[in-house]
């Protein structure tokens, strides 16, 4: 006999992600899935952005790593709630992990939630976390050809932060080549050149994030 199923194999994750999305929307919280290679500067970007953003909107952060709570500790120093998820070998966060982490956060009064994913340009893109949008931190030291080489990741980005601009003179990184490559796989993504170490581009980044918060 034939049994019709007609369902997405990853629907378990998608259903949980949808629950998370609905819950956060009801509370007026905008959430960002922050992805990028290991060492691209995801945590450094958040460390600089959060004190600026907190002047007008309360923020919390969920950190994802295989091991250690180093990143959550760095974020905690900014004074916001920060919860660490250790995947213990898992290469990406999934909705179940995010749901567990959310249970440890007091969501009252929050306007923005950043979920810093495991450093990885491949796996995280496949797993929805219920986020409002996706931010990729791509550092210029990784080379200007990454969008075309990692299309499944870059295709899903709303914002691409081109980090470590302070080092650009030491490399042969071509920002126009990067933008052309990105446009091919994701014509809608916004690109912001920034430097988490000297603050370049952060007022534009603040405007972009703040402009997308509720109320």
């Amino acid at each position, binding site marked *: *006999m*034939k*049994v*019709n*199923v*007609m*369902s*997405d*194999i*990853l629907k*378990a994750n998608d259903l949980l992600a949808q629950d998370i999305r609905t819950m956060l929307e009801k509370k007026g919280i905008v959430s960002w899935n922050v992805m990028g290679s290991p060492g691209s500067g995801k945590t450094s970007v958040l460390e600089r952005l959060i004190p600026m953003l907190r002047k007008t909107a309360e923020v919390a952060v969920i950190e994802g790593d295989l091991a250690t709570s180093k990143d959550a500790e760095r974020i905690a120093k900014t004074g916001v709630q920060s919860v660490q998820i250790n995947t213990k070998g898992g290469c990406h966060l999934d909705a179940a992990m995010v749901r567990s982490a959310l249970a440890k956060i007091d969501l009252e009064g929050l306007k923005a939630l950043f979920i810093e994913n495991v450093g990885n340009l*491949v*796996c995280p*893109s*496949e797993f929805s976390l219920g986020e409002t949008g996706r931010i990729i931190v791509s550092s210029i030291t990784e080379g200007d050809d990454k969008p*075309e080489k990692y*299309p*499944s990741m870059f*295709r899903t980005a709303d914002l691409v932060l081109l980090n470590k601009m302070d080092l650009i003179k030491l490399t042969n990184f071509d920002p126009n080549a990067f933008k052309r490559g990105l*446009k*091919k*796989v*994701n*014509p*809608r993504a916004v690109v912001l050149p920034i430097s988490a170490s000297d603050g370049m581009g952060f007022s534009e980044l603040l405007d972009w994030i703040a402009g997308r918060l509720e109320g």
Partner: protein
Amino acid sequence: MHELSIAEELLGIIVDNAEKAGVRKVVEVNLRIGDYSGILPEALEFAFQVLSHGKITDGARLNIERTKPLFTCRSCGNEGAQEEGAPEEGACPRCGGVEMKLTSGDQLEILSFEGE
């Protein structure tokens, strides 16, 4: 990638549905996997076979329907299939709009299975 955890999810879905339908042995499973899903069919087949040892899906054949990436322009509704890569320069060939949405090609679905 993640074919192993996907094979686990797949097995779970089949076992649940088989139980409800009174199926004790599964001989064929029909899947739809898009070229842009990031999943390698061979790796999924291998993982599924390994996980199926001693289970109701032991020895079942996986039939995999592939789908190609299809883009739809958000501005004018024009549909275009791409052999490789993304819309050229991101613009719709009909209206020049840059809001192209992937409307097919990333599926990872179980359609049906057969058994007794």
